[in-house]
């Protein structure tokens, strides 16, 4: 499953990317084409290599073998400012300097577009304003970051990423430490960005069900390799979940969106899967291991 047919409209590629940590190979010659204009989600267990793959794609680490290309050119050889005009990224738990106010933080997203001497134009103010509006934090513009709640902060960071006006946005677990409502808020915002601007999204998500609901395309990663890829319907099967997470589950259609919904089995029930089959409400179509 490691080879994916090249897509002509994809701009960000991993070509035979391998990464070592402490002499240990954590990513094995991964090939990947990030589908343009779609939401792609990387899923996998802790330590599967999904964050490493993300960091390699985002040029946060250099692969030991292979390369990451943007529009056909090796991303490590392109001027980093030029890359930043096309590719934005939001790492896990970004840190804000003490005392910084929201408008300033969001304004820093304009950095790759400013000239050599950092001159700021009226257009930059307009883009900052639009980004604050899009994420619903315009009222907080003059507040300090440390006064905000976790959910508001995440919106501010997203606003900064939006202000970068990049065609491709990579996000590493944008929903960690958020409660369920703010998780949905954040993902809706990302989906909106994709819908309204055709922005290509690549993100790492822990929650399989949220991944399945918001992704157009899933990459399932285990043992440093992509073990399954395709639409959520193609990827989220009891077999894949078993091989990726070592977890027995049933998969039912999400009652709201119809996307596949993973329902883990309890340890006891795993031994006795067919008891569950009898407990499923009539009319629900469930796939059992």
């Amino acid at each position, binding site marked *: 499953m490691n080879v994916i047919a090249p897509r002509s409209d994809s701009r960000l590629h991993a070509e035979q990317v391998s990464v070592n940590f402490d002499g240990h190979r954590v990513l094995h010659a991964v090939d990947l084409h990030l589908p343009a204009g779609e939401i792609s989600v990387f899923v996998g267990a802790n330590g599967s290599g999904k964050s490493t793959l993300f960091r390699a794609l985002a040029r946060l680490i250099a692969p030991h073998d292979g390369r990451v290309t943007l529009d056909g050119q090796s991303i490590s050889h392109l001027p*980093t400012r030029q890359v930043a005009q096309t590719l934005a990224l939001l790492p896990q738990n970004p840190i804000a300097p003490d*005392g910084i106010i929201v408008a300033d933080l969001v304004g*820093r997203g304009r950095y790759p577009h400013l000239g050599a001497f950092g001159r700021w134009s*009226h257009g930059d*103010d307009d883009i900052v*304003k639009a980004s604050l509006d899009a994420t619903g934090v315009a009222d907080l513009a003059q507040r300090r970051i440390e006064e905000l709640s976790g959910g508001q902060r995440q919106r501010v960071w997203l606003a900064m990423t939006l202000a970068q006006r990049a065609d491709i946005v990579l996000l590493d677990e944008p929903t960690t430490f958020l409660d369920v409502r703010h998780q949905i808020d954040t993902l809706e915002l990302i989906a909106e960005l994709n819908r309204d601007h055709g922005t290509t999204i690549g993100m790492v998500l822990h929650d399989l069900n949220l991944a399945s609901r918001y992704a157009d395309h899933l990459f399932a990663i285990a043992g440093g390799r992509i073990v399954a890829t395709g639409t959520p319907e193609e990827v989220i099967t009891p077999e894949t979940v078993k091989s990726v997470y070592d977890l027995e589950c049933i998969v039912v259609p999400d009652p709201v969106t119809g996307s596949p919904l993973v329902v883990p089995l309890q340890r006891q029930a795993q031994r006795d899967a067919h008891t569950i089959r009898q407990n499923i409400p009539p009319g629900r179509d469930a796939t059992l291991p």
Partner: protein
Amino acid sequence: MSSSATLRLKRQQRQRRTRLVNALLALTVCSLAVLGLCLGVQSLALDQVFNILIGQSTEQSFVVTGLRLPRVLTAVVAGAAFGFAGVTFQVLLRNPLASPDIIGISAGASASAVAGILLFGATGLALTGLALMGGLATAAVIFLLSQRGGTLGLRLILVGIGCAALLTAVTQWMLARANQWDVLAALRWLTGSLNSAFWPALWPLLSGFALVAPFLLFAARSVPVLQLGDDVATGLGVRPRRLRATLLIIAVLLIAVATATTGPIAFVALLAGPIASRLVRRESFPLVTAGLTGAIIVLSADLVSQHLAPVNYPVGVVTGLIGAPFLLFLLARAHRQGISI
């Protein structure tokens, strides 16, 4: 309430405040400098000094252009260099204690200079060169020792404090073994003094500062992005390690060349940054403000030590008297509420 016009207004207000503060500080530097040219054993009137400077009068011209002008210029440029270097270290290492005079770079310059004075009787340019090399070598050692693990920060500060203690002990050991006459010269240098600020000794400082400071001012525009952490900074198109190394090397050059000229004037590098960041609260990297603050500290401390103190103390005694309580304040505050400049 937040239209893009409002955003623009708020941003411009902040910029105006920074410009205003910097203009006021620059004005203060100029006034203090003029005061320094006028005051002395034979005090001169403003118009006399002005006429001498533009070459209209030759009466007392040696006192002004030969003695007072180099002293004032040394105070301004060394103060600015201490301020620039201090605030750069403090901001990049995210800790107000991370100034070069705390983490051993000044101690390295001192040890090397004292060795020069005591062992070879070095003076003038040779002494400057020795202090410069000592500062750079110490910085290199500290960076190498704190590299493991990959992160700059607390580790560098601890390694630096350790190096400072070691180098101070070496300096003390050399002083204890030397003959008395040399010890006096060494001690005078160690306290940080402008008494030997004559033109020949001033050129390395002036040319070094003029060569290096513009790079720092240019690179400063990327620092706000760097403050968002290495990952976000990379995403915004900065190479964090390269940028940080460039900035720190420039800061080390500045501190070394200033220390080499005046001796380690205590606490100026430590004081300038935190004072500047209180003057322009919204600036995340108050480089210019810190440079001007440094110049004001050294100039005014020198005026105090020359004209207000009963004896002509070296300038470092005065800055030490202001600086030590401030260091205690920083330590107490850092302990209470965590660290930030």
